[in-house]
């Protein structure tokens, strides 16, 4: 609304802003109005429901509605959610699985991507094709459990980390290989002439240049692993290693006699805050990373 005149000259925008003779003006004012309306309905209503319900006493929240709370008790609800939902333990558990998984996906993925991008033998191409097959193929969750039991990793964090790493490696290898192919080899050759070995070149030249993809891959893998419940159910179960989503499921499952929406939504808010915070901090990088990698 505010900066429309300044950005209009871009030829790309001319196409949609003109809709016939009477169109442009209608579109100029109608579009922002439509955007605000859509945002209010599609995002505003659910968000409002979550926020007000998380501040209501149970009696008001049993039948969820959009009314503002008559009695405000956000502090109690959030304290209850943190306490009953074992949130601190869940938070630590989530961190202990997600952070190592992301780190492994990135480090192992970068090393493999470098080789896959630079070498062109049949064997390397086959290894690349195999490694990115996880982009399409579904993980065989049932036999993963079988295998982990035999390895003694069922129900453990290392097991969960291994499963997440295996699942998301394809994504990071795919994006990073595409990116490394766009880095000119001259940079590496110059370093090689200066006497740098492969490890040094990888650490000093390739990894720093990979920063944009690393940012994106971090966010995407973090997002998936942080919210995952399906694989966590199978691998970790509901025991001491339960992550935040599993705890949320248990809080919601506890509503045997009376709905406890006020606690569920307090939980949802706290659980979502880390991801929203990460997004707000790194927004620009995430957006450019996602978009540059996808449309290649």
């Amino acid at each position, binding site marked *: 609304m505010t*900066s429309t005149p300044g*950005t209009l000259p871009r*030829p*790309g*925008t*001319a*196409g*949609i802003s003109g809709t*016939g003779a009477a169109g442009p003006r209608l579109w100029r004012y109608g*579009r922002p109005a439509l*955007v605000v309306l859509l*945002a209010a309905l*599609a995002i505003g*209503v659910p968000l409002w*429901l979550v926020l007000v*319900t998380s501040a209501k006493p149970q009696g008001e929240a049993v039948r*969820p509605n*959009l009314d503002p709370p008559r009695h405000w008790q956000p502090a109690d609800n959030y304290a209850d959610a943190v306490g009953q939902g074992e949130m601190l333990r869940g938070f630590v558990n989530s961190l202990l699985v997600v952070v190592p998984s992301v780190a492994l996906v990135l480090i*192992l993925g970068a*090393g*493999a991507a*470098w*080789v896959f991008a630079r*070498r*062109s033998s049949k064997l*390397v191409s086959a290894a690349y094709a*195999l490694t990115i097959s*996880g982009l*399409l*193929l*579904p*993980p*065989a*969750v*049932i*036999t993963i459990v*079988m*295998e982990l039991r035999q390895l003694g990793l069922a129900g453990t964090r290392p097991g969960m980390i*291994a*499963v997440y790493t*295996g*699942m998301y490696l394809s994504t990071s290898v795919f994006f990073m290989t595409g990116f490394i192919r766009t880095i000119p080899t001259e940079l590496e*050759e110059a370093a*090689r*002439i200066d*006497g740098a070995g492969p490890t040094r070149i990888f650490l000093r030249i390739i990894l720093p240049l990979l920063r944009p993809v690393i940012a994106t891959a971090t966010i995407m893998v973090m997002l998936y692993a942080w919210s995952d*419940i399906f694989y966590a159910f199978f691998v970790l179960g509901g025991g001491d290693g339960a992550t935040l*989503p599993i705890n949320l499921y248990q809080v*919601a499952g506890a509503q045997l006699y009376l709905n406890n*929406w006020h606690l*569920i939504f307090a939980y*949802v808010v706290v659980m*979502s805050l880390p991801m*929203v915070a990460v*997004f707000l901090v790194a*927004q620009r990088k995430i957006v450019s990373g*996602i*978009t540059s990698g*996808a*449309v290649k």
Partner: protein
Amino acid sequence: MADTAIRTRGAAPPTRGGKKPGRLPRAAVHHPWWFALPAVAVFAAFFLVPNLLNFYYPFTNWSSYHPDVAFTGLDNFRTIADDGSLLRSIRTTLLYAALAALFQNGFGLGLALLLEEDSRFNRFFRAVFFLPVLISALAVGYVFQALLDQDGAVNAALGTDIPWLGSTTWTVVLVSVIHGWKWMGLAMLIYLAGLKGIPGDMLEAAKVDGAGPWRTFRSVRWPMLAPALTFNVTTALIGSMNTFDIVQATTGGGPAASTEVFNIYMFRIFGQGLYAQASAMSLVLFLIVVVIAIPLVVGLRRREQTL
């Protein structure tokens, strides 16, 4: 150091191709295979091996009731075919995936076209519509359960008494709309990138030729969005075939198993200790993805070439 430099240079002159006989090929020295080894090993051990095992265990009686695993042939498949769960899961999952991909792409493309111009207003609302992507799918499911429950917020606001999540026909559609809602922000970003990649003079030329906005969209922008479409449709289909959280949190597979997709079934049957039967369903999902997704990706890729 100097020694390394000489040796490396001797083995492979950096500007010329070809290998020297009797030496390691240049590529092997400069990009040693062991950089790729850990990734390939972890992927093989924790992704490929389970998928291979998944071709054996469905044909056994592996369950929590037997101490050891014995080969039983097609028994598990016969069981799931006879009780109707096989066909139902296939039908439900495919319907869900097709609808979810449709909604996710429809919403995403619509938002991208609405918010295409790079103004501060639009950037703010792009972030707003991206919000659902950041929230866990399980939480999204609970939010919509609270909205759509018969005692929920939507009925309260409209003064109606509609069992939104209680229809054996329409609930699966509604849940796939929720799926589309959750991921529309990601599709939007990718379509925005596609739109940005369209050269300005191409649109200019279309305008000079007298093309209106609809014609420009159909003949210039839509074909140019092909790579973005390929990516979005593929990720949406794969993602929604593997769906679990949203369905579990909104309907739990009901009513009358009308939203019971593969993963919900596996979760339920695994919980009953019938591991091999769950594994059989998992194998079916694998085969369906291979049979449907891979030709689709190839087809969409080919479509990009011809447009």
